[in-house]
């Protein structure tokens, strides 16, 4: 047990309760807001001396002055005259602590008078009920950081069953922007999960949506950490190294040749996969891109008809000019044109109960999708997608949507998450637990505003995901503005430095003024943790991730600047065959259109053939090599008319 640093006090006006107590300390005691303390009662209850653990939530200090004016008088109004003073006023340090745990738990009584000591490492485990899941043989702890106070340096563990399910799940992080708290914390927690998730609980992977900047673009590159962070890593038993297995996915830009990501430097492209979807994938989630004004019941019926009868099928109709096989937006547009022409020919207003206006409207909206999501949606129907069914254990899959339009982002969220859920239901994902990290929850799951598909999807994960192993790690600046059911279902909540206005909202009223003030002034690398096993919030330190920071990565690996269409194609293909040259690309594609070249490029990137040259060239008509004209260099002699020819022949 550590040295006594305080004594419990209670007065009629400030009594102790079973949930809160007060104690005083010497002026130089190492107690602060967030310190965990231990109270040893002096009177046995049922033969057992009670022990109570608490966390300091408020601190007070005062002197024997009745009025500040008295101090002014004492210094004759001159604060600088203190040097004349030989005696300091009597001063008290009084703290209020919230009870973490009583031992024994019953009978639950007000905190007894007794001595107060700093909680030692074992005490911290008891106080936070971590002893229940750190047992030998049933260890399900995931380190979240280190609690430090006085001389105590204790690792704080989250319970994997309550972080990744099935008991509770989900993690939510709040904090102001610009302090690298949210992203760093998620990176650290993922590293910790990958290092400590118990093998008997199955496999775990993570999908991270990079929604802004280069934050998540260099997860596999080492970063610089100092000795203090190195110590934190060692204490938590997490390797101070970048993620070993990371896969990146990013759609193309609208030019179709350069990837829409800040991780486009040629040196880093070996684990970057283009994300392109075809008509089939998009049409399944048409409601994400089409709002209620667009899709009324009649339009919805036509879209269903297309999905069930037209898409990826041979479609014949006596009215149509030909048989259609629709697998791309281009095919679909041709089908629409044929249908509309048939109606015009017949001078009719309906086709198979669908009114011509509805057909035109749906054609217009669906055609727009390929324009609005250009780069993500491939006109040719080809798909380059996440490794559905073969996700690997302890791997991070980053989907970079930072440079996309909102519609395209929504489409990606909706499809990826829905498909994750479907595959987890079928136990066909490749891993048993999938963490989905979504930043900017204020934008994607706001508490007010329209009920979007993305918000519904996030609510669905929050409320039902833990049963499937689908775990939402979410982050936002303003927790109060996120849908209550999304944050409310997060079993674990982390708080970095918070905005003062945010802390003034009713959701933080349960925290003491001192805790709120501490939250408003938290340093980098400090978090407040709420977890189902912890009855009160706990402050921890976590190390800076041993990962290259986004802005450092962009400096070290500047994004590629595409000079020409052919250069862009070359960059995509050189990942598969570094021997390819720009000249070869230009010669091979000189007779092809850009659409044909992109189709060939997509096919090669998707199939990853052994012989990239042959596979790519096979998509184009053979060009005849230029050769010199076969004719005499000597000009034919001029015809000389006979001199006696009177007619000039």
């Amino acid at each position, binding site marked *: 047990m550590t040295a006594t640093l305080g004594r419990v006090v209670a007065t009629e006006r400030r009594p102790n309760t079973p949930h809160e107590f007060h104690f005083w300390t010497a002026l130089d005691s190492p107690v602060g807001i967030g310190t965990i303390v231990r109270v040893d009662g002096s009177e046995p209850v049922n033969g057992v001396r009670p022990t109570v653990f608490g966390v300091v939530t408020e601190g007070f200090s005062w002197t024997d002055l009745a009025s500040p004016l008295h101090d002014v*008088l004492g210094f004759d109004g001159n604060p600088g005259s203190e040097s004349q003073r*030989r*005696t300091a006023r009597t001063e008290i340090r009084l703290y209020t602590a919230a009870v973490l745990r009583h031992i024994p738990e019953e009978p639950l009584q007000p905190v007894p008078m007794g001595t107060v000591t700093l909680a030692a490492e074992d005490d911290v485990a008891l106080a936070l009920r971590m002893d229940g899941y750190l047992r030998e043989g049933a260890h399900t702890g995931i380190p979240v950081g280190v609690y430090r106070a006085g001389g105590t340096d204790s690792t704080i563990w989250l319970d994997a069953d309550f972080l990744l399910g099935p008991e509770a799940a989900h993690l939510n992080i709040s904090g102001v922007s610009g302090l690298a708290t949210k992203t760093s914390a998620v990176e650290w927690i993922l590293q910790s999960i990958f290092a400590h998730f118990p093998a008997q609980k199955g496999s775990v992977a993570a999908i991270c949506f990079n929604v802004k900047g280069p934050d998540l673009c260099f997860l596999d590159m080492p970063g610089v950490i100092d000795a203090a962070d190195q110590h934190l890593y060692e204490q938590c038993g997490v390797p101070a190294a970048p993620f070993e297995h990371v896969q990146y996915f990013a759609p193309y830009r609208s030019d179709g040749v350069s990837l829409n990501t800040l991780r486009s430097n040629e040196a880093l492209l070996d684990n970057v996969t283009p994300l392109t979807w075809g008509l089939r994938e998009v049409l399944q989630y048409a409601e994400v891109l089409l709002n209620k004004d667009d899709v009324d019941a009649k339009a919805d019926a036509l879209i269903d008809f297309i999905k069930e009868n037209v898409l990826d099928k041979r479609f014949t109709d006596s009215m149509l000019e030909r048989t259609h096989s629709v697998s791309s937006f281009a095919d679909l547009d041709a089908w629409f044109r044929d249908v509309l022409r048939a109606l015009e020919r017949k001078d009719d207003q309906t086709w198979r109960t669908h009114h011509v206006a509805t057909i035109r409207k749906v054609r217009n909206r669906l055609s727009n999708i390929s324009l609005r999501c250009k780069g993500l949606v491939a006109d040719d129907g080809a798909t380059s997608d996440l490794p559905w069914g073969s996700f690997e254990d302890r791997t991070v899959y980053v989907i970079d949507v930072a440079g996309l339009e909102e519609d395209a982002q929504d489409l990606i969220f909706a499809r990826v998450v829905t498909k994750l859920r479907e595959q987890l239901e079928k136990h066909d994902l490749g891993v048993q637990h999938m963490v989905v990290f979504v930043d900017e929850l204020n934008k994607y799951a706001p508490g007010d505003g329209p009920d979007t598909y993305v918000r519904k999807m996030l609510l669905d994960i929050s409320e039902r995901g833990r049963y499937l192993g689908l775990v939402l790690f979410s982050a936002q600046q303003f927790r109060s503005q996120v849908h209550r059911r999304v944050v409310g279902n997060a079993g674990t909540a982390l708080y970095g430095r918070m905005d003062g206005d945010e802390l003034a909202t009713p959701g933080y009223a349960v925290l003491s003024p001192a805790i709120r003030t501490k939250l408003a002034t938290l340093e980098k690398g400090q978090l407040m943790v709420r977890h189902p096993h912890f009855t009160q919030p706990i402050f921890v330190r976590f190390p800076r991730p041993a990962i290259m920071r986004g802005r450092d990565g962009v400096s070290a690996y500047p994004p590629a600047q595409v000079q020409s269409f052919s250069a862009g194609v070359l960059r995509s293909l050189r990942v598969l065959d570094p021997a390819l040259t720009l000249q070869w690309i230009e010669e091979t594609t000189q007779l092809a259109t850009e659409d044909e070249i992109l189709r060939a490029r997509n096919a090669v990137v998707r199939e990853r053939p052994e012989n990239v040259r042959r596979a790519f060239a096979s998509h184009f008509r053979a060009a005849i090599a230029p050769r010199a004209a076969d004719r005499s260099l000597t000009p034919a002699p001029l015809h000389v008319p006979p001199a006696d020819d009177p007619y000039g022949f």
Partner: protein
Amino acid sequence: MRRLVAASLPLGRPVDDGDAPLELVSMRNDAPRLLSATVLEGHALRTHPVPEGAGEAIAAFLDGTQRSTVVQFSGVVPIIVGVVAAVIRGRRGERLLTWRRAVVERRIYASRAQLGAAAWERLTRGAGELLCDVPFASDAEPHPFALRDAAVHAVQRHRELAEQALAHAWFDAEGGLLFVDGGISGTERMATSRRAVGVVKSHGTLYAQGAALECILGLPQGERSSVFRITSPKRTPVASWYLRLRDAAGHDPLWGLVRVECCERDVGDLSARADALSAAVLQETSPLALPDARWDRMVYGIRDCEELLRAVS
């Protein structure tokens, strides 16, 4: 104590008037008086500015408190419970800490002669050594208030003894200057110690008359009077002088005025000693002893002692 008395004298009439201390009523009856004193510094009492920065650091503060309450009347004889306490608060850095332990003593005071043998016997059985006799002639028929005042004086005597015992122990164990709240002439040892300085805040007795009195009452802030000798038949003579701690402008002439006592013998230059001790006392005027009503004459170290004694007694 109240329960003990009630159990010992079940036929008595308990008094429960809110524990009003007798000290507040009985000791106010002392009539103010003026006494002349022998001037030791020069020929007549005059003012002396106290040189700045010449003060000897005060190492500790001694104070005592007392509290007497009537808990029962046995017939017309009051039974009084008295609590005396004393403490020395030593300086450690800028903080004051209790030297050893605070002394707290509780006793029952009654007049054996007035109470009668049977009642006294019953009280003795219950209270044992805690019972103190307040001497009063058995044949007289005293006013109950006279008995009460006699008891208060007995309590006061016990307080002085507690203070003196503590001071003697401190002299034996520690070095440095001891600031005593009140006079130091109660015991020979204190009155003759170079390490004791007494500061008297009350002025029921003023040691000046005529022009000397005018001089004292007109002392400016930071100045002292000439040193004079205080003698008493039962007490050891000491050197004393008046010192103005704070500017009395706008207040009565006694506001901010204290009387300082120190030993008269073996101090060498008495003027220099008075200057040094005056400077030491003046240095203790910060921080203010507010919110105590006597803050103009009380130093913070004594207030600190009183606060502690209030908490423990």
